[in-house]
């Protein structure tokens, strides 16, 4: 039992790094902009399905992944524009876009799931050795996620990044300081969902297939990961805020792997993750402390 779990640790690390993109994508609207967004549930499969369709149609791995990222960005921006201009609550706007994107995914792939041969993948384009060696995959994914986190950290420290954080920290103050809040919300949602779509595109190229249902439950998993990460490193300062989703993702997927290895039924996972998120949300109410999760 434990052997099964231990054998799976490297594979699970790769998986958790692939899903760390979704957790980072959740963190940006929830924490930086203080405006919850559920588009990730649609932008991650959009990235995956579009990448699969483009790859199998013969486009190279870099362009396919790049276009997938742009599509995710567009999905996020659409959610923000619906929220800002049609005054639909951001959560509902995200659900609407995610639902509509499902049809787009089916249209682009033409079939509900599509195999992506490893030799077409971006990993193979880098080096054919990668997909054969789980340790190389770990290193590569750690490097990509690390670069992304450092990139975001640098972005958050620029003048524009600071304005983005101000829009979330005090939306009434932002316009008085000359910041066009709407523009930053649109850009922030775009950035977050571009990251989610990158995650989707990499997942598809790593597992070798895309499926229109691959986004189902991603949001709750990402939320659980974010909650775990924040419980460990906290939320004070942008360094911790950016580290939390990645660390949380690493732990969350090891926990589920441990659960499965000890005989947990995989189909019960969604219920358990949902219950975990619910309990963390309810806990502050029971203990009388202020709710800080959402």
């Amino acid at each position, binding site marked *: 039992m434990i052997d099964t779990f231990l054998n799976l640790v490297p594979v699970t690390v790769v998986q958790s790094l692939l899903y760390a993109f979704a957790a980072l994508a959740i963190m940006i609207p929830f924490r930086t902009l203080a405006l919850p967004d559920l588009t990730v549930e649609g932008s991650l499969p959009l990235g995956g399905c579009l990448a699969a369709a483009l790859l199998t149609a013969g486009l190279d791995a870099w362009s396919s992944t790049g276009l997938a990222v742009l599509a995710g960005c567009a999905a996020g921006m659409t959610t923000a524009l619906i929220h800002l201009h049609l005054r639909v609550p951001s959560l509902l706007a995200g659900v609407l876009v995610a639902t509509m994107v499902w049809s787009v995914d089916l249209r682009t792939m033409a079939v509900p799931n599509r195999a992506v041969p490893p030799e077409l993948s971006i990993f193979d384009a880098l080096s054919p050795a990668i997909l054969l060696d789980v340790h190389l995959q770990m290193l590569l994914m750690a490097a990509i996620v690390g670069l992304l986190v450092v990139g975001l950290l640098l*972005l958050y*420290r*620029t*003048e*524009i*990044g*600071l*304005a983005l*954080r*101000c829009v979330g*920290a*005090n939306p*009434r*103050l*932002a*316009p*008085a*300081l*000359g*910041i*066009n*809040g709407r523009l930053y919300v649109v850009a922030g949602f775009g950035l977050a969902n571009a990251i989610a779509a990158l995650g989707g595109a990499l997942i598809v190229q790593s597992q070798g297939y895309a499926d229109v249902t691959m986004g189902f439950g991603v949001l709750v998993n990402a939320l659980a990961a974010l909650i775990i990460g924040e419980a460990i490193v906290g939320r*004070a300062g942008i360094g911790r805020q950016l580290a939390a989703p990645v660390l949380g993702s690493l732990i969350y997927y090891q926990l589920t792997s441990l659960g499965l290895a000890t005989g947990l039924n995989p189909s019960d996972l969604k219920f358990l993750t949902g219950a975990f998120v619910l309990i963390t949300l309810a806990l502050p109410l029971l203990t009388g402390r202020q709710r800080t999760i959402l």
Partner: protein
Amino acid sequence: MIVVSGLRKAFNRGTASEKVAIAGIDLSVSRGEFVALIGGNGAGKSTLLNLISGALPCDQGRIAVDDIDVTRMPEHERASLMARVFQDPMVGTAPSLTIEENLILAQMRAEGRRLRPALTTMRRTRFRNALAGLGLGLEDRLGSTVALLSGGQRQALALVMATLSPPRLLLLDEHTAALDPRTSQLVMEATVRLVSQAMLTTLMVTHNMEHAVAFASRIVMMDAGRVVADIGADEKKGLRVADLAERFRLSDDRMLLKRGGAA
């Protein structure tokens, strides 16, 4: 020079509960003037400030700052011309950001933002100097989160933020009203010092008649959305709070209370 002409604003327009907040205001403020805007609750003082800053759109009229027509400009664009300190200390600063990050954002108000590192040694030095003038010790806490500051410290910071790159118009919206009398005095003194240093054109809404009489160069009184009195520098000489109250038969409790209070 700030020119407001024929300004009108009604809330819930076209409904039974329509309320005219600004019923036609013409006001011009010369460069360097420090105008105190006084009047009872519901006189339209804060609405006027919101219209000038662009936080609310006006129904009719025109607003110009140094011959730039800002009437149709959104709030974030007007911010390059004017700065504002809010009544609520929670509104004027970003609590989860540090003191220096708040100051950077304030400095960017006029210049705009670019994709380059926000924190530089030069800026830090400048912020330290600007904060040292307050005498609150904030200059040694540049890296602390603003959420840790008291209401008075936040308001003092908001004031420094508003004046860091001198605006063409400074809007103060009862910015000392939420503070205890001692802190209120301290923030008011800092206001007068910063305003006179940079010779800022200032529009200050206040319920504190002492402050209006002592610090402003001109007092404009509003009632029911109109300007009902305009007391210039010459006329203001020798004016006492009691005179003001008597002259306009003030029935506003808050003002009368303040007469006994913060002396």
